[in-house]
């Protein structure tokens, strides 16, 4: 009995240490990347513009169609639900406000974050993981090319730039989706719906979404690359790391979103 309890405690302790270790490692990666962005050039380790642009294409531009499609669908779905619920109180005209606020503050950024976590978080983990397994990361290091500077910093910058942009696009698409469904129900033109949305939105709503998107960008990148670097165990390990990166970053995003919403709306 005592023995099992001790063993459980032991395991709990080890897990905790491992978790603390992982968080520390991730924070270290983040700090190092920023250091290379700021001071890399001076030390002969510049973060290349071409690498950043290439990453921006991969994490940002290539994701636009799917972000637009999903956001449009979610916007439409929100409109359906809001109209159904609000019409019970005869308040269906409030759907404009409800959609506008919930999309800009919450859903736009959340959909974008989850999509990018699935697309790019896993891609970071898989790329860096398979590179570690085949000694490519070691090879970069012994060539005098810091792997963090070469692999992580461009991805981080690209994510920090592209996630807010994708979020704005997502906001547009979602609100458009809602407008297309709601305007006939509310007997107004799509144009009127959109003007009303604009007049009811405050900059603060948009900022809330954008500030979240910055945090999501940091979380997705750092979780993706950290799991990638810690891959052991060959091809199977890469697979496991990819799954882990997606699950962890989506969890982190949703938790961070809740914390943010709580503090920003007090």
């Amino acid at each position: 009995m005592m023995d099992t309890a001790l063993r459980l405690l032991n395991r709990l302790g080890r897990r905790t240490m491992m978790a603390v270790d992982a968080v520390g490692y991730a924070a270290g990666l983040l700090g190092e990347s920023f250091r290379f962005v700021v001071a890399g050039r001076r030390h002969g380790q510049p973060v290349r513009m071409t690498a950043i642009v290439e990453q921006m294409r991969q994490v940002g531009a290539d994701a636009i169609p799917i972000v637009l499609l999903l956001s449009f669908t979610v916007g439409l779905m929100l409109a359906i639900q809001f109209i159904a619920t609000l019409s019970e109180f005869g308040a269906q005209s409030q759907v404009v406000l409800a959609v506008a606020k919930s999309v800009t503050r919450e859903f736009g950024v959340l959909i974008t974050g989850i999509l990018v976590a699935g697309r790019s978080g896993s891609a970071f983990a898989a790329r860096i993981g398979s590179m570690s397994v085949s000694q490519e990361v070691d090879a970069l290091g012994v060539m005098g090319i810091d792997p963090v500077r070469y692999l992580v910093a461009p991805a981080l910058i690209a994510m920090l730039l592209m996630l807010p942009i994708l979020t704005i696009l997502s906001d547009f698409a979602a609100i458009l989706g809602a407008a297309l469904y709601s305007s006939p129900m509310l007997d107004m033109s799509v144009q009127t719906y959109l003007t009303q949305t604009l007049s009811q939105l405050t900059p603060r709503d948009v900022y809330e979404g954008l500030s979240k998107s910055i945090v999501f960008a940091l979380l997705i990148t750092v979780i993706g690359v950290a799991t990638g670097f810690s891959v052991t165990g060959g091809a199977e390990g890469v697979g496991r790391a990819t799954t882990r990166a997606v699950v962890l970053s989506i969890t982190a995003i949703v938790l961070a979103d809740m914390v943010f919403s709580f503090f920003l709306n007090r």
Partner: protein
Amino acid sequence: MNDTAAPLIDVVGLEAYYGRRRILHGVDFSVRRGEIRVIMGGSGSGKSTLLRHIIGLQRPVSGMVKILGVDVGRASAQELLTVRRRLGVSFQGGALITSMSVGDNVALPLREHTQLDETTVRIMSRLKLEFVNLGGFHDLMPSQLSGGMIKRAALARAIVMDPELLFFDEPSAGLDPVVSAELDELILRLRDALRMTIVVVTHELESAFRIADRITVLDQGDVLTTGTVAEVHASENERIQDLLNRRPRTVEVDVDAYLRRLTEEDA
């Protein structure tokens, strides 16, 4: 100049562990300028671990590793990156960046560390590809190359910055005899034509004896001997003779340790 005074590589009392297992037992190792040194040993002898320490991929737990005058254990990350530009490493599996063409792989160190214009980079990297007999292969992707070609491309990348020191991990592993003989020739040419100091890690006896100026024999984390090919052949050490004559090792079983390994919960 002062060749004997300052060895290019100087390892003193290096210890290495994986978990609780001790991989290297106080290894001393030094390499003079201009020689081809072979680190020879069976699998699990610690030769790859020694190599990883020398090129700074692992920091020594205890002992000292000095390379080109820089103490790897104490150097800052920046110093380490700088010294690494003066050495070339060809990894066992090649470790070419799979998303880049062979030409781009070879050109990578030049693009990252020099301000040379694109034409010069192209010419220099193709020169090195010609040197390893891969002329015209620059547009292929690493996945399109055979094992021997990957090794040669990795060698081209390792020497593209004209390093003073070249490391070669298992040049002949997994290659047919002809290709591995060709690689041996290449290594000799590198020393003679480009005056490089070369460290080769291998378990292939034949190749070791063909290229080595001196051989260091590692066994279970101990340096058994360091000497010329003739000296190694003449060695009376039983473990060296086992290795040379491909005799299976006689494992002495320590009964207590054996039982402990079987029963211990978190070994």
